């Protein structure tokens, strides 16, 4: 697995065409809470004085999500906002601050950030741990379970995943791999309450 990034750190990252032109800056990172993948970005205009743009950037049009820029083939990659944020009642919402529950019904904490991979996959979440997870209520990283979801209301993680918690991003990379290897060995959904 490649270098992990906090989604909140994507805000402000320049959106640059392969021709080298700066067209926008990332505002919000939007991800599908079921598929666990980034679906796109809402955008700000370039420069501090510019406001939010009417256009957005769907993930399908992203050439690469780099450390210093989001690369797109050209300006035509930008699309109407509906391409990223579907209009209507179920648009979801901001995930920072929402409750994290384990699939065993335990309170795990509140979401602080979302950890993404360069290919747009959500690797896990940074959460402010609840008592049950960490007595010192520290900020920890917890892997995402393929079968569980996030919405604008809550995030459900595997009860198991709490055993793969990491304190920092570099060690989280290893923990995500451990967690996935374990998941591969134990098919999801065979445990019953």
């Amino acid at each position, binding site marked *: 697995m490649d270098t992990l990034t906090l989604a909140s750190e994507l805000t402000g990252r320049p959106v*640059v*065409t392969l021709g*080298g*032109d700066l067209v926008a800056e990332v505002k919000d990172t939007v991800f599908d809470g079921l598929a666990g993948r980034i679906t796109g970005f809402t955008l700000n205009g370039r420069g501090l004085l510019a406001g939010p743009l009417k256009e957005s950037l769907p993930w399908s049009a992203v050439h*690469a999500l*780099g450390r*210093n*820029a989001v*690369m797109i083939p050209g300006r035509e990659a930008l699309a109407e906002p509906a391409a990223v944020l579907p209009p209507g009642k179920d648009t979801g919402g901001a995930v920072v601050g929402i409750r994290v529950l384990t699939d065993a019904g335990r309170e795990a904490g509140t979401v602080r950030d979302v950890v993404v991979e360069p290919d747009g996959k959500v690797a896990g979440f940074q959460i402010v741990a609840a008592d049950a997870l960490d007595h010192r209520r520290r900020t920890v990283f917890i892997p995402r379970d393929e079968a569980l979801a996030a919405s604008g209301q809550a995030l459900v993680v595997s009860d198991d995943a709490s055993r793969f918690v990491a304190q920092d991003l570099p060690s989280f990379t290893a923990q995500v791999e451990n967690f996935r290897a374990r998941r591969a060995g134990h098919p999801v959904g065979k445990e019953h309450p």
Partner: protein
Amino acid sequence: MMILLSQVKGLRVVTAEEAVELGTVDSLTLDPATGGISRLRLAHGGRVSGVAWPDVRAVGPDAVIVSSADTLSPAPAQDSGRPEVVGARVLTELGDEQGTVKDIGFDPVTGLVQTVYTTLGSVAGEQLRGLGDYALVVRAG
């Protein structure tokens, strides 16, 4: 054969047909599509103008010879908004920064860029992908 932009910068630009001095080389404009120089930018008395590469007859050790004074065109028409190559940020197409451009080595006959020297190393001319207002984009690897 290769010559550096830093060696060419400041050379006098003289026309072959009239033998008049048009100014000195200030910078150059790249065309990443062809991987070559598209224009030479000239400075003369604080004003900036340019000569298209096909009108450049020779880039020598002591002067640059262009066909005639007619080839000179005011820069703003084509060069406005054109970024300065030296000092430009270098980005790989994967979105990772690779320093900034220090110098450019090109073939003085064909005008093809052979090497881009950056603060972190060098990039072969064939790897150029685009030069815009934000960065010089190069192929990764």
